[in-house]
């Protein structure tokens, strides 16, 4: 039985369920983040020691922390930072990785060899360790995080795109383009890249999950977002001293991460299904 080649085909009427759910979840967070000043019931930073360490109640739905700050408001404001981490932490590695991977795979030879050794070296370092080391050099903060992300994160995209380009380079339609004496630029950008990108766009969605987790972990370790800014990872770190008395301080920001990350995972699954990409 001959099996037809899987081809990207947009089925508009029946969108995959995970995609719809993912869009809804991520969209909901985006709305919360954008409308934080109007939606959040309290100021996320202002301290009010008279209401510190209060369990969830009608006044403070998710309770308060040791400075009396409203957890709900901090979670909503935190969405701004964590969505930004998910977006900026993915876009730079994506762009850098795509360029390097495409050139490396298409050019082949020495260029390819050099880039791939570089990829091997970067991959040899445990991701978080290298991130931490780079942030140590640049000094703690979100900007350092994004730079470190760009310096380390591109390798996955480069590998993915390169692998795709290597396959497509020998696809009949690319050989056809070559046999028609098309230039390298035209072949790479019009014929190879558009077909190579689908896989890494889907990967970018699932990568957003990892980036958000990493951003939170870096902040948790005290190397990312600095107090008193509301950020979920930082909130968890701040609440860790109170786990025996005030579980809500750590629990809710963590749940927020899980829900946002789940949204991106669903988005990746749904998009993959839609575009016929299998990871």
């Amino acid at each position, binding site marked *: 039985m001959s099996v037809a080649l899987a081809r990207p085909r947009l089925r508009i009427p029946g969108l995959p369920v995970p995609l719809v759910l993912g869009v809804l979840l991520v969209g909901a967070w985006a709305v919360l983040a954008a409308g934080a000043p109007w939606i959040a019931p309290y100021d996320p930073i202002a301290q009010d020691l008279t209401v510190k360490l209060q369990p969830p109640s009608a006044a403070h739905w998710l309770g308060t922390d040791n400075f009396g700050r409203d957890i709900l408001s901090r979670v909503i404001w935190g969405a701004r930072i964590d969505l930004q981490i998910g977006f900026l932490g993915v876009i730079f590695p994506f762009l850098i990785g795509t360029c390097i991977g495409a050139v490396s795979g298409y050019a082949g030879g020495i260029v390819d060899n050099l880039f791939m050794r570089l990829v*091997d070296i970067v991959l*040899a370092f445990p*991701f978080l360790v290298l991130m931490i080391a780079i942030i140590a050099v640049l000094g703690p903060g979100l900007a350092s995080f994004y730079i470190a992300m760009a310096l380390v994160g591109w390798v996955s995209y480069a590998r993915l795109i390169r692998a795709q380009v290597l396959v497509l380079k020998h696809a009949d339609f690319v050989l056809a383009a070559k046999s028609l004496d098309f230039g390298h630029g035209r072949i790479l950008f019009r014929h190879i890249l558009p077909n190579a990108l689908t896989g890494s766009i889907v990967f970018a969605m699932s990568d957003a999950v990892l980036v958000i987790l990493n951003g939170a972990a870096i902040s948790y*370790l005290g190397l990312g977002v600095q107090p008193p800014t509301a950020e979920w990872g930082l909130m968890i770190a701040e609440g860790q001293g109170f786990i*025996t008395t005030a579980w809500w301080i750590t*629990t809710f920001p*963590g749940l927020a991460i899980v829900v946002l990350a*789940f949204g991106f995972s669903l988005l990746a699954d749904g998009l993959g299904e839609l575009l016929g990409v299998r990871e």
Partner: protein
Amino acid sequence: MHRFRFVLWRPLQLLPVLFGISVITFVLIRSIPGDPARLLLGTRATPTALAKIRAQYGLDEPLWTQYLYFLQNLSQGEMGRSIVFKIGVLDLMANRILPTVLLVVGSVILSLLITVPLASAAARNRGRPLDHAIRLVSTAGLGLPAFWLGIMLIILLSVNLGLFPVAGFGDTWLDRLHHMVLPCLTVALALSAVLTRNLRASMIAEMASDQATAARARGLPERVIFRRHVLPNSLVPTINLLAVNIGWLIGGSVVVETVFSLPGLGQLLVRGIFARDYMVVQAIAMAFAVATVLINFLADVLTVAIDPRIRL
């Protein structure tokens, strides 16, 4: 067994990678703001004393000469001294390596114990409620922050139920294992999410593969087909994924050790960065990188052992 000949030459191929690791580590550490001489001597040091120390450690020489010194010391097993602990870095690491090794090995074993049955159950019940449940949980699990999961487990199992110690390592072996359960479980749960999704997908692909159809045409029962044909074939990509995730796993240990106050290398690394204990950071980063390279090499050996087609 000439398929395994790569075991001999592959390490040679890894030399450039190891070289690159040393360069990056060296450059990164030297770029960290702060004068090492001043760190050694303290803020009240005289300029002459500083100059003397700089000359002694070769800090006044060009960077590439310094790198050569660094390599020379490295080849003699000399990694410098910890500023904070005032002992040799290697001795310090030797004291701290056990929790980290236990954590990584323990979580890999635990995650396989979770992954294989879950993925098999999902794949064999594809499209049924059980499969949907496992898919949902594993997809949600992708977004579990390990540090938060650790804290939640502490609240649930240690604080509320008192089953496990909250933090620390312990002195006897039994006590240590008891202390390791929650950290390992934390990492294993996060890792299982990725592995289960991957293994389920490759099992489903293998169950629909031509060779499984052929096995069915030979009248073999589904359970035999699953055990003998589907499982071995679908394990190969999962082992590769596990190897790719080793770097993530070791990185994750940094966070998890901090959560559980485990006196391991990861915790030492984080403290080293905050205390600007550069020699320690340098040594641990290199050790982690070398370990990642070695584990990936082992995974290659394992893949070749399972799949006779693969040649390296």
